[in-house]
């Protein structure tokens, strides 16, 4: 009798302790992919899982970096037109990039590698190139300069370079969600340098994601979206930029058609989509499209919502967002 009770009690203790493990939360901060990444796993967390995630981030960085000589992207860019066999992840990202280029009519385009390098925005060598330089480099941009062949081979027209920096973080965020789900995690939030992906919810509440005020030097937000199981990605002209001697500001979102930073009425675009790689590509694409085209485009998409902020602090929301967006700064106004 005593033995039985004792066994039951021991079993109960084990069950309780295993419950403790399933409720364990952990947070990790890593510097990777030229940014700061916060992994916040809210249940089923353990050292092994966090290590698997950070290792995957390092791997993606070493495969898709534009500047690291050992990366797939570097190898493809310096192959002088030859076909290069790449990792299946790199191939997937480039293939997605091509798909988004087609969907966005070229407003997002991974073949702007040489243009990005020419401007050097965010590097020690940032400068305004000459008109001739820009014209020459714009000639190297376009989907017809990229050939993909299954499985996993990429070749570029000699002179063209691809840069997947605009979507690699989105891909990495999707990978974090995949790894977390596989480990049985039900609630997590990943922040890859301001590119947010959430898994599940916070108990009975949604996650509250602030949308950065593009006019503030600090991390102020003008609104909040309440989300579950999705990704929130913002592109803005405040992220990386330089100001030349005459006081003109040049930001990092380059227009593949003009070769100059996209110059329109927008200050920032936020895209909400369950696929972070897609949200990443289209936050750039919609910014380049501008307000009118961007709004028309997003309304045709079933799986994406967007927030546009203009230079005059007007906020435009896609139809699906009206219920989940909260404006919390009076100096902005919602016009749609």
């Amino acid at each position, binding site marked *: *009798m*005593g*033995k039985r*009770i*004792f066994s039951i*009690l021991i079993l*109960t*203790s084990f069950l*309780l*302790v295993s*419950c*403790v493990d399933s*409720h*364990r*939360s952990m947070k990790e*901060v*890593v*510097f990777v992919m*030229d*940014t*700061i990444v*916060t992994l916040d796993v809210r249940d089923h967390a353990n050292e092994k899982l966090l290590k698997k995630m950070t290792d995957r981030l390092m791997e993606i960085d070493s495969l898709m970096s534009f500047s690291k000589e050992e990366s797939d992207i570097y190898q493809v860019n310096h192959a002088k037109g030859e076909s290069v066999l790449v990792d299946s992840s790199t191939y997937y990202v480039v293939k997605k990039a091509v798909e988004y280029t087609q969907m966005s009519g070229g407003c997002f385009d991974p073949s702007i590698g040489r243009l990005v390098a020419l401007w050097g925005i*965010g590097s*020690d060598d940032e400068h305004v190139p000459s008109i001739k330089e820009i014209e020459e480099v714009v000639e190297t941009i376009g989907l017809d300069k990229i050939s993909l062949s299954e499985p996993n081979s990429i070749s570029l027209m000699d002179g063209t370079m691809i840069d997947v920096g605009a979507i690699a973080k989105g891909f990495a965020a999707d990978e974090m969600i995949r790894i977390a789900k596989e480990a049985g995690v039900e609630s997590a*939030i990943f*922040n890859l340098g*301001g*590119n*947010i992906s*959430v898994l599940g919810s*916070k108990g009975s509440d949604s*996650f*509250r*994601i*602030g*949308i*950065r005020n593009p006019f503030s*030097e*600090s*991390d102020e*937000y003008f609104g*909040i979206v309440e989300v579950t199981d999705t990704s*929130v*990605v*913002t592109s*803005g002209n405040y*992220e990386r930029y330089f100001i030349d001697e005459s006081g003109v500001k040049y930001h990092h979102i380059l227009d593949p058609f003009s070769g100059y930073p996209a110059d329109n009425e927008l200050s920032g675009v*936020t895209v909400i989509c369950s696929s972070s790689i897609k949200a990443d590509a289209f936050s750039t694409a919609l910014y380049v499209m501008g307000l009118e085209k961007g709004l028309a485009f997003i309304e045709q998409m079933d799986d994406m919502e967007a927030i546009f902020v203009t230079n005059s602090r007007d906020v435009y929301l896609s139809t699906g967002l009206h219920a989940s967006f909260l404006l*919390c700064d009076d100096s902005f106004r919602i016009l749609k």
Partner: protein
Amino acid sequence: MNMMKQGDYILIFFLLLFAGVLFLHSMYNIQEKGAMVEIRLADEDPVYVSIDQNTTLDLSRGDLVNILCIEDEKVYMLESNCRDQLCVRRGEISLEGESIVCLPHRISIVILGTDKGDIDALSQ
């Protein structure tokens, strides 16, 4: 039939109590820390400083200069010789979840545990 002694019951009671406390602790993720400033330098383990002590911290490593100030429960980067100066221009932070990041020098400063923050993350 073996009868359990009183001592066994006491032992079992405490075992269960211990397991129960562990369970509740993790369920509700009880935070006993007060407001802290988490400071990370590159890939080193973070260090924690209480936000209510006024202090100036020299985070410089070699040629990389960063001076952090904690003053009246506000935190700001007083000085840095980084290229973009974003950490200095960031100004003061005081709410949970707010951060100062110096990417060129791989430094991150985050405020933890004041429970005043309204959002879970900032999309930027």
